[in-house]
């Protein structure tokens, strides 16, 4: 079917402004393949089924919209966790600011450096999970990323990582436009945690491909919030082996246009995938979109999607989540909840929860709610002497609690709770 003209024009303009790396080494084939795929499918436009609630224009335009650089008086959100720190400034790895890339149980490389070689173990991973994740829903921004990613990390955990890897993004330019790709291979029995925080650029497109082998586990916690004018598309593609575990949590505050996609395929029996997020947003410009697609293609797997959004002052939150249970994926345990808490009458929460099940012995539940704060509970708290604003904050944090409970690391969870409380106490207006 012919693509709409606006899609062709958008795609052409964007692709013409980008160029493939001159010497892409082992990534060359995947990049060229991605370039032809993205040309063929075209970049997203608002008419596309999975972009109906989110206008992709700011993410597909030739130039990024300028974004101010914000300073914060609060230290890094993962500051109290001992980590291996890796720093990217405006989308470029900063060796000076980063720790030495050595960690027991793990090898870490920079993508840009690795391409001097023609052979690399990650060749089977780079673009492979992204390609597999295009069906049945196209994700052209991720394909664009495969073709044009300029930097990122290649992480291979062969044992239990001695400490988490913390990728800290810094923005110094108001017009930086970053395309980053991380590749993570967690070998059988290995464990690694990836933390991400900070603004990668004025506009950024970050894709992470994660292959979790049998009995391996991958944890991921991400904080988006320091970039008040963030325009970003992120995608995580994960493939899970037998008895493996994948857990990803994202806290989002501030920003203008954020689309976080997570695409997971449970291919080994008895594996688990938990994806959760909290988002707090204010203002007409705030638009946050979580789009999740989990495919059960093995027996006795468990998946959870827990997303909570607090919106005020004309903000918009979107959730599109799907559980697909393939034929033969018996004893699947799938759970999905998405909830919006609207702190005024002007904000919007748009949800599209989906279940598609082809196996006959599964337990899948899903729910989606949207509502205002419980006035009776507010009155109860006030009757005990708690001022209205404080009561509202307390109930808002309580609303977010179920999602925050998805974080295994209690220190990190506590820090995120504190940050959310600070955000809520910030003067409105």
């Amino acid at each position, binding site marked *: 079917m012919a693509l709409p003209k606006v899609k062709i024009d958008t795609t052409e303009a964007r692709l013409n402004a980008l160029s493939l790396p001159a010497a892409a080494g082992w990534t060359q084939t995947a990049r060229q393949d991605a370039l032809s795929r993205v040309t063929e499918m075209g970049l997203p436009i608002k008419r596309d089924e999975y972009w109906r609630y989110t206008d992709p224009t700011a993410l597909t335009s030739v130039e990024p919209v300028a974004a101010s650089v914000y300073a914060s008086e609060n230290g890094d959100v993962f500051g109290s966790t001992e980590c291996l720190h890796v720093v990217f400034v405006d989308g470029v790895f900063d060796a000076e600011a980063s720790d030495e890339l050595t960690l027991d149980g793990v090898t870490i490389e920079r993508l840009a450096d690795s391409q001097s070689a023609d052979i690399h173990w990650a060749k089977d991973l780079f673009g492979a999970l992204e390609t597999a994740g295009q069906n049945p829903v196209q994700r052209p921004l991720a394909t664009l990323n495969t073709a044009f990613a300029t930097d990122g990390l290649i992480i291979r955990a062969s044992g239990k990582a001695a400490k988490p890897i913390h990728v800290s993004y810094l923005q110094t330019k108001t017009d930086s436009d970053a395309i980053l790709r991380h590749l993570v291979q967690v070998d059988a029995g290995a464990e690694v945690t990836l933390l991400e925080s900070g603004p990668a650029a004025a506009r950024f497109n970050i894709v992470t491909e994660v292959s979790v082998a049998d009995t391996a586990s991958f944890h991921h916690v991400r904080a988006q919030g320091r970039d008040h004018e963030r325009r970003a598309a992120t995608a995580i593609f994960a493939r899970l082996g037998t008895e493996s575990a994948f857990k990803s949590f994202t806290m989002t505050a501030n920003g203008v246009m954020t689309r976080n996609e997570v695409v997971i395929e449970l291919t080994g029996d008895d594996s688990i995938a938990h994806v959760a997020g909290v988002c707090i947003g204010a203002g007409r410009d705030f638009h946050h979109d979580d789009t999740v697609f989990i495919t059960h293609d093995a027996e006795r797997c468990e998946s959870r999607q827990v997303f909570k959004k607090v919106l005020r002052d004309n903000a918009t939150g979107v959730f599109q989540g799907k559980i697909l249970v393939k034929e033969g994926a018996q004893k699947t345990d799938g759970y999905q909840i998405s909830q919006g808490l609207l702190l005024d009458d002007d904000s919007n929460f748009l949800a599209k929860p989906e279940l598609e099940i082809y196996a006959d012995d599964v337990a899948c539940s899903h729910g989606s709610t949207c509502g205002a704060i419980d006035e009776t509970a507010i009155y109860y708290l006030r*009757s005990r002497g708690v001022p209205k604003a*404080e009561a509202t904050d*307390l109930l808002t944090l309580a609303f977010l609690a179920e999602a925050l409970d998805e974080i295994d690391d209690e220190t990190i969870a506590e820090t995120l709770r504190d940050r959310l409380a600070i955000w809520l106490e910030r003067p409105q207006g």
Partner: protein
Amino acid sequence: MLEIKNLHVKLEEEEKQILKGVNLTVEAGKVHAIMGPNGSGKSTLSYVLSGRDGYEVTDGEASLDGEDLLDLEPEERAAAGLFLAFQYPVEIPGVGNMTFLRTAVNAQRKSRGEEELSAADFLKVVRERAKTLKIDADMLKRPVNVGFSGGEKKRNEILQMAMLEPKMCILDETDSGLDVDAMKLVSEGVNALRSEGRSFLVITHYQRLLDHIKPDVVHIMANGRIVKTGGPELALEVENNGYADILAEVE
């Protein structure tokens, strides 16, 4: 202590007058009971005094130790020393009971210009007071009133009262939904808080509760007014003969 004069209240949403001139004075250290048939306005009186939305005071006044209550926000009334034990305590998922209690205690201390209690100090006091109400550690950890039995909810109300140390306590049908043992436990909790400087207004349908919490004065409320006031014997009269005789006598 509590002074209510000619209080007239209607529902905000509709033209329905609920209280039609309530006059009531509760002196310091005294326990007053209000009894009355369903729909007489007893619960409305408690809500209006605590500042719940949805009611409009059309006439009259209410003050606590001379301070006009009706002009204050609910949290300011609480800070002034007013406490309402709810007939239906509210469930708050996601907020631990302990967090709730500590937030309330510290909010009131703050509004009075006192230092907030440290976590350790607070814990000590709450444990001790919870123990006498047979509230275990698990109940303190669970979300406020979520999954609590009827008796647990009412005990939890009394625990809040014990922690907040109000001077004017209103108990709105605290006996509803309680079995005999729970009623005894709750009553003991209330009696332990009786003191010279603290007054109680006990709203109930039944004499039974007043066997445990002995009132100094009993009022009968009907059709939005206090229609009869007497000693504890008045409650017995209601128990034996119902409201019909009293109401007929007043008419």
